């Protein structure tokens, strides 16, 4: 009996001695490594032509270099050169076409990879060439790749024709599909509008002006890709597939890709910023600009200003399927920054700032509006709310707009994490200021009722039926939580006497309803691809009306004056002239009310005291290169925060023995 008790005690003691809640190897404690979690799902693909989700871009943004980048601190966002030497200017070729010419930096090379032996026996790397950028664009056009952004590049001369030729040739000659990928593209004749003039020079010929093209060169879709990697990583003979294997061109490289547990990134010694710090290249140097607000947020620390990037030795991305365990690990110091989960929000944030407990832990809170917009749209093709109703419908839309309290909505459903919207352009995007002070985006029930009466619906009563006006509200979520949110709008409209019925479906059915045009009002959102007002105002451009062309203009808004202004605005550079046009466009929207702009979500990010240079970015763009950690401080805090509490184990052991032992003793005594 006593032997058994002793054995149990020994097991408990040895387990406790070995135990620690540190999820990382102890030897890594002092390394300059950033720990970040991947949420919801592991990355789907590393193929830059396909990757289009936040978690994909977390990895691809770190490992692929882009021709252009964004300045880390400047808002509104500003492009800076990356792999390209300079930001190109679109030129008129005089024949109706226009050209954008990129010149790559000299001496750019790929990270070492066995695939390069395909091109030159024994080679482990090679220079990054302009032809590789053209190859990347051809892959986007390739129907077999299935890139979600293929339509974006259709203004490149010959882009769609190449896609069609490739498809036709593969159908005609199934053997072609078995050939090496670059041979296939060559056989299809390449893309006419991509002219490779030298190893470093690429000219892109456009059929029409396309100022937003440059933004797409700041995204990973257009990163140079070596054909060798695509040809080599084909999934045969134990090799990876290309979407699981990346050849780095950015500041980091992948050293371990167990994406369902941990992805390890380490410095890519082949990156130009590390090989040539003397260039002081803008995307490889910590910016020296920044505002007073940046200074106050600790983003202008002299030890970093103008210093070569990256500061970190590596990044460890751990996959957390469930949000609660991941957030608790962050609170133990095992992640360096984190979004705030719903369940813990009140423990972390109080009255817009951090709670004293969080401040005592040395945490920082950063808030940044996402370049995104949620809105209620009206179907302008509908006879009741749409354009054919003329002034009557306009007043109805205005009245409905006046009934909705965005502030209250954000407070109730998003813990105040959002900014009420007045126009389709969110903060941080050029033209946002022009939209402020919209007279129809405040709550004024009296005015709303008056407008409703003028529209022919006194107290919301439809004279034809003698009952309250009935409208349909189409939404894309079916969860109980979402229902509650939509009910808020319905209740708001009921206050002016209108009876709105929600019809909820999943996202696909929702898309289907929009395509068929069988809706009156709907709730929708949009997140920017790039920080240009065009990327929001195009959602109301007549050419893209859903009913006309299947485009993104789900409100089917088609106003000749707006359309004309949009085309002018689209092709202009930011400046007072563009702002004046944007103001005119917003004025049209203000009165016409195809949308009731609801709110811009705000991202709250909590970062540990030892994390340096964190600035929330809104868009899913690479930022690891700018971050740094004070590893010794982190190690100290982690130890202090995670001292195991041992006494309950002893109490438990003693309690079990105390309860069981007397019974055992009595039992044997009786037996004897």
């Amino acid at each position, binding site marked *: 009996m006593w032997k058994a008790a002793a054995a149990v005690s020994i097991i408990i003691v040895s*387990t*406790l001695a*070995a*135990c*620690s*809640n*540190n*999820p*990382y*190897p102890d030897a890594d404690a002092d390394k300059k490594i950033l720990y970040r979690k991947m949420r*919801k*799902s*592991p*990355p*789907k*693909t590393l193929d830059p032509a396909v990757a*289009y*989700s936040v978690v994909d871009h977390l990895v691809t943004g770190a490992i692929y270099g882009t021709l252009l980048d964004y300045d880390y601190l400047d808002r509104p966002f500003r492009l800076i050169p990356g792999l390209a030497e300079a930001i190109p200017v679109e030129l008129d070729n005089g024949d109706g076409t226009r050209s954008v010419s990129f010149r790559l930096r000299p001496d750019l090379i790929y990270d070492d990879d066995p695939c390069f032996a395909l091109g030159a026996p024994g080679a482990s790397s090679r220079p990054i060439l302009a032809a590789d950028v053209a190859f990347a664009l051809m892959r986007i056009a390739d*129907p077999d790749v*299935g*890139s*979600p*952004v*293929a*339509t974006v590049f259709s203004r490149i001369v010959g882009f769609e024709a190449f896609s069609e030729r490739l498809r036709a040739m593969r159908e005609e000659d199934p053997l072609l599909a078995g050939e090496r990928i670059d041979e296939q593209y060559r056989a299809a004749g390449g893309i006419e509008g991509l002219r490779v003039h030298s190893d470093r020079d690429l000219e892109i010929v456009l059929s029409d002006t396309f100022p937003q093209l440059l933004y797409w060169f700041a995204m990973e879709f257009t990163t140079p890709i070596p054909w060798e990697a695509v040809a080599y990583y084909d*999934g045969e003979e134990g090799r990876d*597939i290309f*979407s*699981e294997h990346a050849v780095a061109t950015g500041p980091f490289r992948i050293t371990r890709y*167990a994406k*369902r*547990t941990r992805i390890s990134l380490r410095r890519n010694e082949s990156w130009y910023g590390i090989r040539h710090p003397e260039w002081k290249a803008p995307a490889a140097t910590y910016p020296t600009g920044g505002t007073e607000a940046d200074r106050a947020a600790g983003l202008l620390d002299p030890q970093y200003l103008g210093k070569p990037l990256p500061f970190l030795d590596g990044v460890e991305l*751990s*996959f*957390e*399927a*469930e949000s*609660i*365990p991941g957030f*608790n*690990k962050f*609170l*133990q110091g*095992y992640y360096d920054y984190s979004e705030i989960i719903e369940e813990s929000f009140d423990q972390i944030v109080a009255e817009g700032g951090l709670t004293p407990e969080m401040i005592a832990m040395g945490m920082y809170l950063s808030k940044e509006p996402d370049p995104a917009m949620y809105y209620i749209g009206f179907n302008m093709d509908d006879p009741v709310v749409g354009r054919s109703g003329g002034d009557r419908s306009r007043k109805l839309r205005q009245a409905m707009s006046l009934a909705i309290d965005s502030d209250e909505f954000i407070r109730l459903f998003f813990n105040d994490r959002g900014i009420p919207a007045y126009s389709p352009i969110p903060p941080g995007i050029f033209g946002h200021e022009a939209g402020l002070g919209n007279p129809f985006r405040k709550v004024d029930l009296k005015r709303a009722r008056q407008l409703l009466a003028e529209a022919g619906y006194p107290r919301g009563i439809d004279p034809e039926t003698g009952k309250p006006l009935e409208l349909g509200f189409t939404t894309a979520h079916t969860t109980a939580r979402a229902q509650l949110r939509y009910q808020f709008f319905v209740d708001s409209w009921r206050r002016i006497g209108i009876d709105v019925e929600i019809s909820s479906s*999943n*996202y*696909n059915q929702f*898309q289907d309803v929009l395509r068929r045009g069988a809706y009156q009002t709907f709730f929708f959102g949009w*997140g920017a*691809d790039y920080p240009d007002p065009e990327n929001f105002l195009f959602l109301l451009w007549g050419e893209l009306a859903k009913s006309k062309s*299947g485009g993104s203009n789900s409100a089917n808004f088609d106003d000749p004056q707006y359309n004309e202004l949009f085309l002018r605005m689209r092709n202009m550079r930011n400046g007072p002239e563009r702002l004046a046009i944007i103001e005119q466009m917003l004025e049209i929207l203000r009165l016409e009310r195809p949308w009731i702009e609801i709110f811009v979500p705000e991202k709250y990010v909590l970062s540990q005291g030892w994390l340096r240079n964190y600035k929330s970015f809104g868009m899913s763009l690479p930022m690891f290169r700018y971050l740094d950690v004070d590893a010794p401080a982190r190690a100290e805090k982690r130890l202090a925060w995670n001292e*195991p*509490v041992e006494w*309950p*184990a002893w109490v438990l052991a003693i309690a079990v023995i105390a*309860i069981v032992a007397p*019974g*055992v003793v009595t*039992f044997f005594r009786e*037996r004897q």
Partner: protein
Amino acid sequence: MIAYVLRRFAYGGATVLGVLAFLFALFFLYATPEDMARRALGDKAPPPAIEQWIVNHEYHHPLFWNPENPGQTLLVDHYRRMLSFDFGRSDADDVLVTKRLREGVGPSLTLTMPLFALGLLLSIALALFVATFRETYIDRAGVAVCVLAMSVSILLYIIGGQFLIARTLKWFPISGFDPSPAVIARFLVLPVLVGLAASFGEQVRFYRTVFVEETNRDYVRTARAKGCGDGRVMWHHVLRNAMIPIITRVVLAIPFLFTGSILLESFFAIPGLGSMTVEAIHANDFATLRVMVFLGSVFFIVGQIATDVCYTLADPRVRLE
């Protein structure tokens, strides 16, 4: 006996075919190929990209009936692939499903094997212990503890365990997994403890009933009369004679060690086959999901037949006809 086994395999085969049909119907009742494409490509993917994805992943054929070519339907393809064990590539990330299975089975086994072995040893030992002290307060306390333990949902054990043991007492990491030998044990202790806590109550109750029933048999009284001690009676005679119910449970459970534990793996971020199944559900990844369901049903059938065979081995009186 061979005829019996063959007959059981035939029944099992029919069951598996039914499961596959049921899965197919349920999945496509809930999701369309467009849903799958949108989940894979993101909400912003334009319609041409969605169509391209569907063609590239061969979901453009009709579901059940293709008048032009009756063999070209998703249902036929579904059966052809599963029955020939040609699992294809995941719809979420195009990785070979067999590769994902290979990667996932290791972490699953590192969790389920210790959980299974410890659970079995612990619950049999505890059951023998309380059966030895039956009708005393130890037995009654045992009943209370077991009933309490089995009445609580495993989710509560998971969240409570993570909160109490990992977050408050800081003994082990809250979640995570690292296959390197230096740290792997650290990640496994808590999920194994939670798994034990969630399962021991029911198991102990079951085995105790079995043992108590055996201790009332004549041979036990005879053994006692001949001067056999308590320990020898329980561990030697009673345990051996109670083997049949134990084998039933054990053999049935073994195949499922490979498919992992859905809840434990998801909450403790263990990259096994259980969490893979959950991810496949979230991602509308039909290619992976159907393989998991298919293997699960095959394992279940094999487990049942193996149990029957084991009966004859454990007890010569049992014959399979």
